[in-house]
């Protein structure tokens, strides 16, 4: 490959990577700041991931409700991504209402995207990453605080304890 073309390739890659990366950061920041707040109850545990460090593996109680609802439909041709409707209470905790059937949403309802895999239903982030040594701090986590966009995309931003207080090593 000629020298000029290979330089163009590297420069193009660098621009695309940094541009795409920062655009993606911007989108997630918009969701973090503007998304609807939802609290989902959890059942956590904590191992270590390659490159990403320590994390708490999360399971949401909601997952079982969605799985039960799916089983009742007795459909074998479900898509890999589905929408579920959550009922949001006054304290922002949310519970499963129904599978999305296209009907308009009530005022206290919102859509959340779920992934269907061979091993079950996946709701939102399945792990919360934290600084090494903070595991004990997050042991009391009972709720995951999510920001949910209009398209059902979700972002896990904090963990909360049983009294719905955010668990913060530092304010971010």
């Amino acid at each position: 490959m000629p020298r000029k073309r290979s330089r163009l390739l590297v420069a193009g890659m660098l621009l695309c990577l940094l541009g795409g990366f920062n655009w993606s950061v911007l989108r997630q920041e918009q969701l973090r700041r503007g998304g609807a707040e939802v609290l989902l109850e959890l059942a956590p545990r904590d191992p270590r991931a390659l490159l990403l460090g320590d994390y708490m593996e999360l399971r949401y109680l909601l997952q079982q409700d969605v799985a039960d609802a799916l089983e009742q439909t007795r459909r074998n041709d479900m898509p890999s991504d589905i929408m579920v409707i959550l009922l949001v209470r006054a304290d922002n905790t949310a519970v499963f209402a129904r599978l999305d059937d296209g009907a308009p949403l009530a005022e206290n309802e919102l859509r959340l995207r779920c992934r269907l895999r061979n091993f079950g239903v996946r709701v939102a982030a399945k792990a919360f990453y934290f600084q090494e040594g903070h595991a004990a701090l997050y042991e009391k986590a009972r709720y995951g605080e999510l920001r949910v966009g209009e398209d059902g995309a979700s972002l896990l931003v904090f963990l909360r304890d049983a009294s719905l207080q955010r668990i913060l090593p530092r304010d971010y």
Partner: protein
Amino acid sequence: MVMQPSSSVLLSWARQGHIGPDALEAALLYLGIRPDPAAWRRFWLWVLQLGGALSLVCGVIFFIAWNWADMHPFAKFGLLQALLAACLGAALYKGPETHAGVLCLLGGGILVGPLLAVYGQTYQTGAEVWELFRGWTLALLPLALAGQRPFLFFLLWITASLWGGLHLLQEIPISSFERIFFQGDSNFIIRWMYFQAGQAAFLLAWEIGSAFLGRTRPWLRTRWLPRLVFFALSASLTVSMAEHITSRHINIWHISLYLGVLVAGGSWRRRPDLFMEACGLCSLAALLAVWLIQVEFLMNNGITVGLLGWSLLISGFTAVVIRILRFRQGNMAQPAATAPECPDAWTALRRHLEARGLLKAGVLPPVCRAPGPPWFVSLVQGLGGWLAACLLLGGVAALLILTLDIRDAGVQRVGFLLFGGAALLAANLCASGREQFGSQFSLALALTGMGGLGAALAEWASLFDFMTLAFMALAGACGVAIAYCLHHAFIFRVIASCAFFFCVMFAWLEVPPLRLDRAEIFLPLDGLTLTLHALFWGSLCLLLIWGQLREKRWRLSQARAAFLEPGFLGLYIALLCFLVFCEALGDMHVHIFDASLKISSKLLGVCAGAALARWTFGLAGAWRAPTGVRLGLAAAAGLLIPAGWFLPGLSLSLLGLALCRQAGSRPLLGVTGCFLLAYFTNFYYTLTLSLLYKSILLAGSGALLLILAGLLAKILPKGQNPNTEEAAPHAA
């Protein structure tokens, strides 16, 4: 065919008295087998630069993994993007095709991973880990195209394979593997087939590029990368086909892909590749064996007949595969007239020695020998030999156990002893041939014999009530030592030596006054105990160095060299194994002799550093360097003494690298490299130090190594050894 000058040929001449010790040393130096000061300088510069750069990158990765809560994510993004931009900017400045530019591209390519990892830590959207590798692969593709080096494509292939592999694994729970392999899961098989088709497409693209663009782009003519991909692909497809055979589930597309890859690997290229043909033949032989097992061939007449029959069958398979490969090798061989420039190498060596008055004219004759099989053909033979021997031994053991039905412990001990002795005798009888099948077959028998002798003696030692484990380990070591003396094969002796020293180390830890059952090593230790531990590990390391410093004395004697060389190699591997043992038990929090393991591994690291310093001092003395330079070099190597306390694996592996260079041993280099990789992977996961401290330690070590490299480059000029002022053939 004329052999290339090699250390084995020169050593055999020296042992037969054709050339003197001085001529041997001069020839080894001239050929680059024995490093001269300039070669040591190049070697250590390479080790320090590579080690320093890798330590720095690991320090960054560990820091990212620490996930510092007090650092704003934007600061992390900014830091990594700046580093990435600096790397790629340097590549653009130097030119992506230059050596420095390619290294910068590699650094930039590696940094993309941590950048994506920080993104994943910060925005926890539920994205999968395979999505990280997908992004990494897409970023690496243009870098590999721009850099045009096989190792960049290798990195690309690794990340792409992780992308595909993790995607498959995360879509399917581990617990369902049994169901997948024994009952068939079309969904999984189809995804697996896509993954294999992707690998096949990569291979095809490389081969097409090599065929059409190889003339103008020499890097495309590299064979190791397509061979590696073909090996992985054919292994993966063989497992898939075996699954089809056992589940009787036919997927015509998958079978077509398998046959297509096999046919393409064997015959598509204008110049066939024997390695790919060997992979294809082994794959077909394995599938035939799976089919025969599926139809219960030879399995209906009892386990003894089955094992003995399968031993013969495997021998037959191996013979057929080797016969075909030999035939193909003969077809592919170059005409004798175009044989390489070996005579020139011999002539140059002769002239070099004659010019120094070390050789009388006409002493060195070119050696003629039929071309030996390539390493992978030998490997197939060796694997066949191992499998056949294991089945044979299983058959014999089944015959003895089922027919004699011995239950008395005393008779069992005698049985172990007799079985071990018989296996060793049989091994010596089989070891005479030059073929790998016979030598590996005999190796398996000899190892069984060694195990039998060791187990018999250890069983007898277990009768003592006092220091039972220590006595058992020492008795096992005695059995291993007897086997070492009785069987002469090099590989066997390396393994036996490793087993011997490992038993001795284990016995040492088990001696009651030396056992430290305290959980914390920083408790005030008994001074005598600590001194004894230090003396033990120090003497093992010094034994290793003593062997190298006195090498000239024992190397020239065939008998001494055959006895000592595998012994020293085995000792080093035993030290590596011991360190792995310490780390593994330490991570499992096994409290039995917990403190002994910790203190021993740290002292081993310290002693390895001290031994390297002592060796450096001795080597510099052999070069007749001034005392100041000798002391300076020893002090530089002595920096490993404190480093060995915190990172024992680092100092031990650096000692191993020096041994590899001195002996010119590639297998030892491979062993040490694998150990380093495993050690630092374990270092990431171990919880004894926080990721922050590890990051500081690694980044600090990396900076120190790079500074040392700079100092070494300045202090030691690129002096040419007075013996090698001519351009030696290895200089390139």
